[in-house]
């Protein structure tokens, strides 16, 4: 008889996120395989960042999900429902683009209310909803301005409000921060994450900035050449890269010669466990700068080439006895007494490493 408040009716458009499934998507443009068998699943309410170098097919994947582009083969499903033949304007997806895309002839408020107007909401309701969205992104006092009167960061926040106003099933963000300067970028990515957690919409966030991806996402999918290389939570991805490409793309990496035997690698004289996918003999261990420590040692076989001071941390560039360049990241207080030209010894912390064949990395 009485409905429990946790139960939601189909007409309740503010339901929490839905699942999204991209299955075996391919997309070819002439000779180019923009997508080459991409399979990706987003859990309800999850924010997945799609990370990869330029041209790896991120935008193509997002546009196919939005219905703005058609896959050559493969399927798109949202909440278990196949969307392949649903046109873009019926998919209920909010989009924020890399380039500024606010309608210049409408005020901020009317921009945000645009999708609601199309849905036939009356003026009062849509303005209420739009005002609510503007408050969510902290721009209430700018509602009567035009896009040309706003900064880039403000415009992207309005674009976010506009996308969310329609209570989309899925939120799609295509490098929404890349046109902004570094400081605004960091602020805004945190804001996007806060808003996303608040509304609970399943979100695909495309970026080529690994720091951005690791900072905002529940899970990060790393793409290369139209395929997914690995998808995992940020910490997991960082600690356990599944492929050389992921290890290299996520985080700065040193490639240090190593010899593997019985699941252990000897790296700089230290026995270190290896990750799944490592080679079984000699190769290059992918060692993160923060896993290396540097000690002044007149007997040491390595020497410092330069020290870069980056505020709280410093990066110490060294060369090993065999001329391999490596970078160690220390706190600045640890690095205080180190100077270029000094002889040092390097030590690796015994965290698991991926050891790749020397040939694939081109040494």
């Amino acid at each position, binding site marked *: 008889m009485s409905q429990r408040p946790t139960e939601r009716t189909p007409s309740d458009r503010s339901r929490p996120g839905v699942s999204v499934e991209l299955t075996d998507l391919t997309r070819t443009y002439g000779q180019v395989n923009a997508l080459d068998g991409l399979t990706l699943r987003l859990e309800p309410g999850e924010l997945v960042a799609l990370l990869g170098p330029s041209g790896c097919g991120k935008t193509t994947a997002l546009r196919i999900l*939005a*219905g*703005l582009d058609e896959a050559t083969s493969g399927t798109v499903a949202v909440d278990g429902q196949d969307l392949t033949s649903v046109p*873009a*304007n*019926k*998919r*209920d*997806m*909010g*989009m924020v*683009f890399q*380039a*500024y*895309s606010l*309608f*210049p*002839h*409408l005020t901020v408020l009317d921009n945000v209310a*645009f*999708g609601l*107007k*199309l*849905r036939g909401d009356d003026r009062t309701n849509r303005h209420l909803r739009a005002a609510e969205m503007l408050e969510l992104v902290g721009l209430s006092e700018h509602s009567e301005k*035009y*896009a*040309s009167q706003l900064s880039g960061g403000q415009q992207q926040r309005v*674009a976010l409000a*506009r*996308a969310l106003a*329609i209570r989309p099933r899925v939120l*799609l963000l295509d490098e929404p921060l890349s046109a902004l300067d570094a400081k605004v970028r960091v602020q805004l990515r945190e804001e996007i994450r806060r808003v996303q957690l608040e509304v609970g919409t399943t979100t695909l966030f495309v970026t080529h900035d690994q720091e951005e991806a690791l900072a905002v996402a529940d899970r990060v999918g790393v793409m290369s050449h139209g395929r997914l290389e690995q998808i995992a939570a940020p910490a997991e991805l960082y600690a356990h890269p599944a492929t050389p490409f992921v290890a290299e793309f996520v985080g700065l990496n040193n490639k240090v010669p190593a010899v593997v035997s019985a699941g252990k690698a000897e790296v700089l004289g230290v026995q270190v466990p290896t990750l799944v996918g490592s080679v079984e003999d000699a190769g290059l261990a992918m060692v993160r700068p923060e896993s290396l420590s540097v000690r002044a040692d007149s007997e040491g076989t390595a020497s410092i080439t330069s020290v870069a001071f980056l505020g709280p941390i410093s990066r110490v560039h060294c060369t090993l006895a065999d001329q391999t360049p490596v970078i160690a990241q220390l706190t600045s207080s640890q690095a205080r007494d180190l100077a270029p030209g000094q002889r040092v010894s390097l030590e690796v912390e015994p965290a698991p490493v991926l050891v790749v064949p020397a040939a694939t990395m081109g040494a």
Partner: protein
Amino acid sequence: MAEAAAGRGRRAGARLREGAPLLPFFAYLVIFLVIPTVAVLVGSVYLDGSFSFGRIHELFSSTALAALWKSVLLSASTAVVGAVLGAVLAWLVASSPPTSVLRRMMLSLCSVLAQFGGVALAFAFVATVGSTGVLTLWVAHLGVDLAGSGWLYTLTGLVLVYTYFQIPLMVIVFLPALEGLKAQWREAAVSLGATGWQYWRQVAVPLLTPAFLGSMLLLFANAFAAYATAAALVSIGSPIVPLLIRQALTSEVVLGQSGFAYALALEMIVVVAVVMVAYTLLVRRTSRWLR
């Protein structure tokens, strides 16, 4: 006080230095715009040592009013027809891929045709659909009288001939506005739920309207000031204003007629000025959202 005055002086000096590179342009403006305008203004009220509003008064004679009405009608109708057809053509050009041969051909053709006015154009029409035109003679065999009652030499003919250069001019001036429509606007509208029609109605048309109206005003002014085409086509009879000026200038029958030419020129300047003011208001209205 003295400081403020000095500040003003410095600012004026700075402004002068900034303006210096524009001096040749200002000189040009003065020689070819300001002086003739003043001459026309003076000439229409003051001639041969006497001052009178007589010639201005003559502008309201039935001949002059008829000419003005014809000029406005001709300019307005060719501006509207040219703007509509030109906009459609520009849209076809804009939606073809930038590398297509058809597009490049269209653009070159338009650049040529927009300048293809005057005697040459008039002759082209006379030679084709005039009373002894090629096409006229050819279809005469089929029992069709293409030249009719000499329509080509009337206002109807002028409308057709003017439209011939108005359409390509519209393509050239309107294309940048069409190409300024960002792909993201369409995609944003579509992802928010708009159909193609809703996108046009609520985004593209409002964004293009100022440019469309502005181009139309330009077309109006273009037709209003055109002289040679009409001169070559319409020899006598009820003329448009530029032809009436010629008539007044060459006429020696009525005394003081050259003063009337000044008055007519002033009338044209006033009409074009009104068009420019309308254009400015249009631009100001939209400057808030178009940078």
